[in-house]
């Protein structure tokens, strides 16, 4: 549009209204900042409380411990966040972690005869690549079922979760890997690099934490600066508008589930390193933890809203809470009760605050 349109709005009144709007625009910036930093504030409050309640909370070894506990959930939560923003949910991330770690562990520790050739044990690089391929493939299958088959995300990924756990049991023959119980096993341990990912550290900072931070940064960048991220928000915010605007919804969803699968594989590798073993039933309960992290971090299960940094703090809140309850010697049964209630409480508070500020 070259020439602007002549429009003689009654200037006095318009100006009158914008004076107000200029002021409230400033306060709305403050409000939206507060709105976005909700999870960070909640995390800080929790940390401050715990540092007073327990003398061990702020010690170096405890912080390292929290980072190790949190990093797995954080990695899964980033993939989950992308899925949730599109309006979906991925209940198979825990299972994908288990399958990809199991496949990698089996290949890295055992030997097979395929067509007369002895294969394996493969090197650590191959192990990681194969684990990631497994994760991406399962994620893509999730995406195809959801987007092409038009099955609700919830059902599709839950079904896949059971399927994948079953396959993982088949792959590991129901045993932890490595286990010494299987005749074909060559090594009694996972490659040291994998173990380092789970338990090692770089300049005193846990390696798994570094992986988690990298994943968070990648997620943040995708969501904020790439066309894919924009499509994710658009599809979750209004699927119809996304369609009218020419966005390929099927392809976007498949890709997002693929990324979630990839993140799950990364988490699976780190977790198997931490446990120095992989098994078909590991990462149980991580699906719900990752969903909870994303939601605590401000993601909207109806789609269209959420972010990587928020989800990181969501995961940190979950990890710190679990750690704090341990430090405070809370009975393990009560820990579950408290954790569940805290999740509900935080989301309730978040809903209330959103309604208050948006009205």
């Amino acid at each position: 549009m070259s020439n602007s349109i002549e429009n003689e709005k009654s200037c006095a009144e318009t100006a009158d209204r914008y004076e107000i709007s200029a002021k409230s625009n400033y306060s709305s910036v403050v409000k939206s900042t507060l709105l976005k930093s909700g999870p960070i504030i909640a995390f800080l409050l929790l940390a401050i409380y715990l540092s007073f309640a327990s003398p061990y909370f702020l010690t170096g070894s405890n912080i390292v411990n929290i980072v190790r506990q949190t990093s797995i959930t954080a990695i899964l939560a980033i993939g989950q966040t992308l899925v949730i923003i599109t309006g979906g949910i991925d209940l198979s991330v825990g299972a994908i972690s288990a399958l990809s770690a199991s496949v990698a562990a089996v290949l890295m520790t055992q030997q097979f005869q395929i067509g007369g050739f002895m294969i394996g044990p493969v090197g650590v690089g191959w192990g990681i690549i194969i684990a990631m391929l497994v994760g991406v493939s399962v994620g893509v299958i999730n995406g195809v079922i959801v987007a092409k088959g038009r099955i609700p995300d919830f059902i599709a990924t839950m079904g896949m979760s059971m399927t994948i756990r079953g396959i993982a049991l088949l792959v590991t023959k129901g045993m932890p890997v490595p286990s010494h119980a299987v005749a074909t096993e060559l090594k009694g341990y996972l490659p040291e690099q994998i173990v380092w990912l789970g338990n090692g550290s770089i300049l005193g900072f846990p390696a798994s934490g570094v992986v988690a931070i990298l994943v968070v940064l990648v997620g943040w960048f995708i969501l904020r600066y790439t066309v894919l991220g924009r499509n994710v928000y658009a599809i979750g915010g209004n699927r119809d508008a996304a369609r009218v605007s020419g966005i390929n919804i099927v392809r976007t969803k498949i890709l997002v589930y693929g990324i979630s699968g990839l993140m799950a594989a990364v988490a699976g590798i780190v977790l198997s390193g931490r446990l120095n073993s992989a098994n078909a039933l590991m990462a149980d309960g991580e699906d719900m933890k990752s969903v909870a992290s994303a939601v605590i971090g401000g993601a909207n299960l109806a789609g269209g809203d959420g972010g990587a940094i928020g989800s990181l703090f969501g995961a940190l809140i979950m990890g710190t809470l679990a750690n704090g309850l341990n430090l405070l010697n809370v009975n393990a049964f009560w820990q579950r009760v408290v954790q569940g209630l805290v999740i509900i409480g935080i989301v309730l508070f978040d809903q209330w605050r959103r309604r208050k500020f948006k009205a």
Partner: protein
Amino acid sequence: MVTKKVLLRMERIDKKFPGVHALNQIDLDLYAGEVHILLGENGAGKSTLMKILSGSLERDSGNIWIDGKEVGDLDPEHSKSLGIGMVYQELSLCPNLSVAENIFLGNLPKTKIGAVDWEKLNKMAKESLVSLNVSIDPRMLVRNLEVAEQQLTEIARVINRQSKILLLDEPTSALSDAERDRLFELIRLLQSKGVGIIYISHRLNEIKMIGTRVTVMRDGKVVDTIPVEKTDENQLIQKMVGRKLNEQYPKIHTKIGDKILEIKNLSSENKFKNVNFQLHSGEILGIFGLMGAGQTELARSIFGLDSKMSGEVLIDGCVLTKHNPNDSIRHGLGMLTRDRREGLVPMLEVPQNVTLAIRSQESFGQIIKLRTEKEFANKFVNSLQINPPIINRKVVFFSGGNQQKIILSRWLCCESKVLIFDEPTRGIDVAGKADVFRLMSQLANEGIGIVMISSEIPEIIAMADRILVMRRGEIVTEFQQSVTQEDLLCAASEF
């Protein structure tokens, strides 16, 4: 009016939203048996005022009296119990339930053991429908009703809660003339029963037909409240926009260029068949038809939103083979859907919405330059005079006319060659309409070809260079510009 009983009085109602003073010291009263028309441009604050009355928004300050008693904070429940009934623009019925169930929803009659007493329910529903002179079978599923019947059902539901004050927000926007007459009959009946009605409409010609008094709002203030018989349309328009509308249909006569869009034998499964037409650059081609004649389906199918059965769409002589929106956009087609909510991502801000379609042509890994994007948005906000000119504002907070401009920006941003406007002024106020028409003229003048689908006869006659008339899914006639309203209606109706 014999008894001038005041049902409702609102004084100095004030409401501020972030960025806008939505209601500025509003005074309004409503008598029993009156139809009080609320007029104003989009964003004038009418809907906000109604939301405050129905309890879905809290007021910042101001007092409300109902039946002479002051009421404090309103929430939806409280508001209902005070006898205020709201009929929303978008119907809020459950389509999968029957008429009777919808009318008594939340208050179903029960048998001794606590199950629904179907016999009693249907009888009660029948009675309440009959008392409103409405003949609908209470057992029908709402899904199977005509739009007007759904509206009547909704009103029956509201009235059934003993509402004395009825709020109607643009009730006729989806109705045909005959359906509207039916609604007006019902309104007159309610009037005679002493119900007070606040009626929001953008259709000025309805004011004389149904109104008692009219209150004009502008920029969050009440401009005037006048008895209907003491005013006329011109005066009302002037009060609404605060100035004289020099031109309601600013049509620029442009030179019509080469063929740019061609539709060949396009047919759908059952909505339209054998549609053929051509559109030239700089031309505004009107497609007129009564509701359900297939014009919306045709538009959606051309753009690739709905499937087609056979036929071709050509842009600049090039056949669109993939038949999906992405491919259409690549070839320079843009579409403003009938329902604006289908066009916008409400919780995203202006820049993201403006660039949405252009992003669909980029690869997923493409990195977005946020600053360029903002500059883009600013450019369109200025050139299209989007109001308020704040780009970091979620589009859900803009008024209808401005949302329409944001969607238009999206297609200008893609440099579309052909734009399809499906009912571009639906739910937009008078000044907003003139704005949209001015933009259409200007775009045509710049060489864009426009398909304008409209059921508003005056606007299509004024704006279109040629008019195709659709009836039962087929194009039956073509008119040149000099067509009269009667000709157009005759061609579109079936005799």
